[in-house]
């Protein structure tokens, strides 16, 4: 083993081939534009955009975030300008500034038809490589989490999206369930090409001085290093339950954290909250993954997938 031995970092999510396993976590990277000053977007395995809905969504009231030990709660509520504006602004920008990076559009909806409508509209755009179907947002009243906590509802969303596209469908799973493997199997059966997990854990924080919740909405989604062990455990459970690839996320801050998810069974990983703490986090994670492989004589990063020894 030499220090500069070439490491093959490529991985595949079904038909979607990635130059490396490091992607962005939806909602923490917008569409990349704000990070272009800090990150070489073309080095990313993929950009996963913020959630896009058919019509513009206003999101929730403020305060929308609260810092908690080694993490944060958010209740942004999927504020976004809708699919048309997304195509006109974000996609056009990405095509021009990050032409080599696959774009995965995160899709949200209140109803099955809304999800399918977004996918159908985006399928007209050649700049989109795949979809991540968010059935796990804890921050909207209808849709979102409701779909992600019931096997038939989750399957219905996936089946409806499957009907309108042949592009890869990644289904984003919620940790707010008692058996995540069961939901994963249901979406696999409905036609998902991959699953991604975890979305945020439903949480709450109260200011004891004012006796009011820290978030205007009361509850929100917990993310960051605080949730990492829960996420690793769920990735491990899901990877054993399905045959499709798994994208792992939840508190990844370093390359070693990313490797932990791959050992648990993830084919690719996503960096979320870390982007807020260090806008270059995705690059650091990518460099760290490569460094780990060199140090441990791993020639192909995909050899690490599920390689935990029990």
């Amino acid at each position: 083993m030499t220090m500069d031995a070439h490491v093959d970092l490529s991985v595949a999510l079904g038909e979607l081939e990635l130059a490396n396993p490091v992607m962005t976590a939806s909602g923490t990277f917008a569409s990349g534009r704000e990070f272009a000053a800090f990150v070489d977007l073309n080095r990313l395995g993929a950009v996963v955009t913020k959630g896009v809905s058919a019509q513009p969504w206003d999101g929730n009231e403020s305060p929308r975030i609260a810092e908690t030990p080694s993490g944060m709660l958010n209740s942004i509520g999927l504020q976004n300008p809708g699919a048309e504006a997304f195509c006109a602004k974000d996609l056009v920008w990405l095509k021009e500034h990050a032409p080599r990076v696959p774009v995965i559009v995160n899709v949200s909806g209140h109803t099955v038809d809304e999800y399918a409508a977004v996918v159908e509209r985006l399928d007209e755009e050649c700049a989109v490589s795949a979809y991540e179907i968010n059935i796990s947002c804890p921050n909207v009243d209808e849709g979102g989490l409701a779909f992600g906590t019931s096997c038939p509802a989750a399957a219905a969303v996936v089946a409806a999206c499957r009907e309108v596209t042949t592009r890869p469908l990644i289904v984003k799973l919620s940790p707010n369930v008692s058996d995540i493997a069961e939901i994963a199997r249901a979406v696999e059966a409905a036609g998902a090409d991959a699953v991604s997990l975890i979305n945020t854990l439903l949480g709450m924080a109260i200011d004891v001085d004012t006796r009011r919740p820290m978030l205007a909405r009361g509850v929100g989604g917990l993310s960051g290093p605080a949730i990492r062990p829960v996420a690793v455990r769920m990735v491990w459970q899901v990877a054993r339950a399905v045959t499709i690839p798994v994208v792992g996320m939840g508190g990844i801050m370093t390359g070693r954290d990313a490797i932990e998810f791959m050992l648990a069974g993830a084919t690719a990983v996503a960096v979320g909250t870390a982007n807020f703490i260090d806008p270059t986090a995705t690059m650091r994670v990518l460099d760290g993954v490569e460094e780990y492989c060199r140090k441990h004589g791993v020639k192909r990063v995909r050899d690490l997938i599920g390689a935990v020894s029990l």
Partner: protein
Amino acid sequence: MTVSPQPVLETVRVLANERIATGVGLLTLQAPRIARSVEPGQFVHLRIGVGRTEILRRPFSVHRAVGDRIEILYQVVGAGTARLARVGPADEDLDAIGPVGHGWDVPAGTSHALLVTGGLGAAPMGMLAERLAAQGVACVVAMGAPTAERLVARELFESVARKVVLTTDDGTAGTRGLVTVATERLLAEERFDMVYACGPEGMQRAVASQAAVAGVRCQVSLERLMACGIGACLSCVVTTTNGRKRACVDGPVFYAEEVVWYASEVPPKH
């Protein structure tokens, strides 16, 4: 409008960290790239050390920029600022994203400005006062604070302004009472073509309505909880007549007439 330069991520060195009043510090950082490009009213998003359970950055206005240095005036209110009060030249794990945000607008032709500060609201006004003075704009500064020693940056304003009017809650300096009593009188007695206000949101709201009555345009600098600080996460929205905007990049400075007050305010502590 000032065109914001692209922010950078810069490792900063602590050159000095002095306590200047009860619970208030003045931090001098070596940050050459930020210092060179920062405009009045912009801020830095500061990482105060790594490996702690408080993971998020903290936003602070740039009070002044001199050469390759920036100055930050801060008030200790929680864990992050308590840690900031303890940092010194030996700490090597601080970095800043900056300069961020849309700062104070100084339209061509501005000749008489009223600057209104409440407490630490003086922080984003230091560079502004210097800039206005350098451009020959006549400035009146109305400062409010709980007590005399908390009239932070008073000397700076006194050195560049035509007049500085002081108010304190306890009467230890200037007139006893709220700064808004002073501004109401100033707006009635003198002619201004711009009001700049920063302080508690209630104070900014009150000054904005006084300015509107006097027919003078008013800019305010709003605080919101911020995760990314660069426009990506939508944590920091301000409700405006033009929809929801991001305090971090569309603000923190807004024209008051655009702000829908109360709608997105950070609830005051206690």
